[in-house]
């Protein structure tokens, strides 16, 4: 999993409440055997004017020019500003996969659906909860300033605006630790790699026939 420590990037405002996971990544794309490559279908129904099909080359599809992520000024967005209850609906982990694959590193909203919120941490994405007023303020500032960038500092738990203003956010200590160090379940287990290696060495002595046999 990607580490998340400090990130600065273009912010884009997605001005809708209750964005559900089917909107983030529609169900026809779930049949894939992959967990990468969903970025081109992120917000598919909002982004394109036609209906998307799996395995389709999206380059030639008609774009919805008005959709925020299609506006030239938000090209390369990596911080998404959103409204309340972002990520509601089905529990599909494809939603954070799609955001991540698109290049989003952090989503800032007044509230998130719980499963989506959890799934973000498993995938190196940082969901940040700020107050309604703070989110409003960010929406206003981003609208009036082209090239508006936000800095997300996980270590110090603050979002910094271009003017230097800092907005503090809360996050569970354990989750913070895992993100800062890039630890998912596998990462956590690998913290005990020495124990595993020691066990394996013993096993190699006591049951050598289990090693280098299958090749």
């Amino acid at each position: 999993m990607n580490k998340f420590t400090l990130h600065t990037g273009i912010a884009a405002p997605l001005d809708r409440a209750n964005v559900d996971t089917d909107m983030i990544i529609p169900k026809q794309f779930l049949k894939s055997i992959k967990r990468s490559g969903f970025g081109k279908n992120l917000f598919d129904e909002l982004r394109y004017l036609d209906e998307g099909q799996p395995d389709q080359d999206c380059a030639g599809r008609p774009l919805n020019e008005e959709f925020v992520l299609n506006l030239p000024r938000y090209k390369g967005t990596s911080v998404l500003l959103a409204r309340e209850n972002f990520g509601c609906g089905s529990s599909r982990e494809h939603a954070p996969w799609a955001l991540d694959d698109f290049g989003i590193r952090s989503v800032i909203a007044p509230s998130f659906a719980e499963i989506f919120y959890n799934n973000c941490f498993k995938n190196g994405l940082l969901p940040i909860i700020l107050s309604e007023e703070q989110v409003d303020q960010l929406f206003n500032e981003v609208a009036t300033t082209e090239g508006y960038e936000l800095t997300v500092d996980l270590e110090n738990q603050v979002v910094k605006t271009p003017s230097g203003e800092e907005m503090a956010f809360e996050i569970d200590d354990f989750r913070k630790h895992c993100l800062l160090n890039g630890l998912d379940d596998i990462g956590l287990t690998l913290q005990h790699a020495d124990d595993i290696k020691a066990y394996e060495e013993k096993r190699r002595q006591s049951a050598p026939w289990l090693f280098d046999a299958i090749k």
Partner: protein
Amino acid sequence: MAGKTLYDKLFESHLVRTNDDGSSLIYIDRQVLHEVTSPQAFEGLRMAGRQPWRIDANIATPDHNVPTTERSGGVDEIVDPVSKIQVKTLDSNCDEFGILEFKMNDQRQGIVHVMAPEQGAILPGVTAVCGDSHTATLGALGALAHGVGTSEVEHVLATQCLITKKMKNMLVRVDGELGIGVTPKDVVLHVIGVIGTAGGTGYAIEFGGDVFRNMSMEGRMTVCNMAIEAGARVGLVSVDQITLDYVEGRPFAPKGEQWDMAVAAWKDLVSDNDAEFDEVVEINGADIEPQVTWGTSPEMVVGVSAQVPNPANETDQVKIDGINRALEYMGLNADQNITDIKLDRVFIGSCTNSRIEDLRDAAKVVEGRKVAGNIIQALVVPGSGLVKEQAEKEGLDKVFTAAGLEWREPGCSMCLAMNPDKLGNGEHCASTSNRNFEGRQGFGGRTHLVSPAMAAAAAVTGHFIDVRELIK
């Protein structure tokens, strides 16, 4: 202090550490991979820039949705696009990471749980995982085998460990002698009927007693295979001479000095005489007759001479509702004789019953007979290329085809209907597989689980019949 069960020994000998939250990290000696549950695990590794921890702990083969009809054209000619891409992805992942794979048209390809023991890839005393719930099959060798999900497949690939919690111990003891025509499948179906589909939840079940001691390895695999249908993720049989005889000489089994060393170590893979089980179930083997499931859960099972249950004989409302719903789905009447159930299709195969002994049992019954007129299709799908080869050497394929059954290429086939082998809506099937859930073998399909001999008997008579009447 009380002795240890086989499960305790296997668990303790693989414990790497106990985590702060009480879960345990156990070392996994072997992982078996197939095309359905592995693609996103490999993808996860790649995305995180991780390498498999230990390549030589893994072995792979495609099975769940390979076609079982003529397939010499190779993977490119698989018709279903999702199946094709899954099989291709397994091939390319194994090539990329250097994992040994028996590809679709390799003689050694087969259903994961048939191929792995056949190759000696699974040995007594190992821990094994596979992304399929019937991995418990491998416990027949005295191995601790868990079925796992895709995220655990990735976890084991990356760390060679599984995060798990220790289970409780259950002993299912079947003593006495089995009657003629009563097979391991009948024993395990009967056991599930007694303890129920949730009876083993949270337990590792060890199968003990005369019946299992005298049973062949293949029979033990059939039994352990269905531990999961009793709710248990793990099924086990203690190691004995039958186990050693089965393992000796297999391609990945130890040889020479290492063999002697292994045998010495494996001698301890038994539950101690004074081991304490949290739960003991005792059954008399002489009481078991050939079994047939009538409903939509493996516990809805009776002897072939019995009748379909009548909800009026029950007092528990949940049970009554369950019976009514199953009767409706299955299109059966209460109190109807099992032997009056007419069949449309017959499936002999799956990781439960597709080994050579199963095929011999079935062939014995159909020999010199013909598939009944009302049977639309009767499939025989061997569990691996090697089982197929052996059967052909013995002329079993000829016996089947002469009787009008189809002889297929190895794979999971109609067990789960991911390939084109499926039941039609409302059709009744005598199946040697392990799940009779609604729609498992095709939308609206009605599955009756039976032994290979019983399925063969149904094929030639067109309805259920006590196989003992045909093999007298």
